[in-house]
């Protein structure tokens, strides 16, 4: 049978979980995200907003989501005095992840773009790996290794951006209720 021939088995002791570690990634500053979202803007003017109960209720009605932060971080992207749109910076908390992101909204209420500013995710931390002669494409394993800034890429755990999708919908509603 062909299958058995290919099962090059590597019998290993189970790995042991030692601690939880947070993988933290900072992609962009607010300023960098603003320029990526509205490349044509020559200035980004902070827009101080204090949401009242009626506005919070309106956001809920429009998006189905609760806007908890009553003083959201909003900038008006401008070019020669003309408003190109809004940049809103927000944070969402998921089960494992914590995402800070920026959304660009056009004057007619459409998403211009979404950029992640930073991402924090909790992983099982340092794991004592057995002395495994890695044959996985001839690569070697560091043992023990830990997840930190050096290992930026992770495969294997379900990564959800549901909270982020909900957040973008909420920010579109927010953009619709603040004065233009």
């Amino acid at each position, binding site marked *: 049978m062909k299958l058995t021939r290919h099962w090059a088995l590597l019998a290993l002791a189970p790995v042991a*979980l030692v601690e939880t570690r947070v993988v933290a*990634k900072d992609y962009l500053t607010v300023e960098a995200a603003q320029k*990526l979202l509205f490349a044509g803007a020559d200035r980004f003017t902070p827009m101080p907003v204090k949401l009242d109960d009626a506005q919070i209720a309106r956001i809920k009605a429009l998006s189905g989501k609760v806007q908890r932060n009553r003083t959201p971080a909003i900038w008006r992207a401008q070019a020669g005095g003309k408003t190109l749109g809004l940049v809103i910076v927000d944070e969402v908390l998921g089960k494992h992840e914590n995402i800070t992101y920026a959304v660009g909204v056009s004057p007619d209420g459409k998403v211009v773009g979404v950029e992640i500013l930073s991402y924090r995710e909790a992983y099982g931390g340092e794991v004592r790996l057995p002395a495994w002669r890695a044959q996985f494409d001839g690569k070697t394993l560091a043992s023990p290794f830990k997840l930190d800034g050096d290992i930026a890429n992770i495969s294997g*755990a*379900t990564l959800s951006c549901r909270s982020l999708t909900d957040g973008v919908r909420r920010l579109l509603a927010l953009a619709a209720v603040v004065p233009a």
Partner: protein
Amino acid sequence: MITRAQPWLGTLVEISADSDAAIDAGFAAIARVHRALNAHDPESELSCANRVALHQPVRLSRMAAAVIGRAQFWAARSDGAFDASAGHWRAVKLTGRTLRFAAPLALDLSGIAKGFAVDRAVAALRGAHARRGLVNAGGDMRGFGAAWPVALVRPDRAPVAQIALRDAALATSALRPDGSGDHLRGLARNVVSASVECRRAIDADALAKIVAGGGPRVAACLDAVGAVALVIGAGGELTQIGNPGRLAA
């Protein structure tokens, strides 16, 4: 090296490359795949084809034809272990770019579209003269021009292995942390996660599901594209399947 992330394809897509212009091109390629093949969007090309293909032939875009063609290739190779039509792959008739359904069905390309999008983004990065890059769509990834370190983690997020990805793609299919595997058809017993490395991400994506499902066609499917798989068992044990030497070819 610049790294940016945007939400696409129901996950967080991360792109690393030399320049913002290249990364913009990569995300634009991802966005085109997302818009065309999103089964949750009634206006997408895929949704339109799903509504019509039982009643009349549908002329597909090159993109949709390429992905459905590859899904059918893996359905045939795996004898339905991978199936974008939930059990009806033999009723999916693709001739060139013309699609017909011989039975009522709906294609869901979510098991392969992420890998395809990663491939398209890598092509876009290269087209924008990036010398090195990595595209990671929620764990389905492909890198070129450098040795990219990648950690393989269990569904409960404990890391079990680290590899270097060099001019290759990697995809993982895993149980959900709560132990459910309903997104995998026929997950093999005692398997919690299956990762596959090969040249193209679209193949790694499909193969990860085939390997996770187990069965007699696994080795032949891996051999078809010179892929190698790493399976994590319920007890944390690692098993390698496939011949890594073929990857170098």
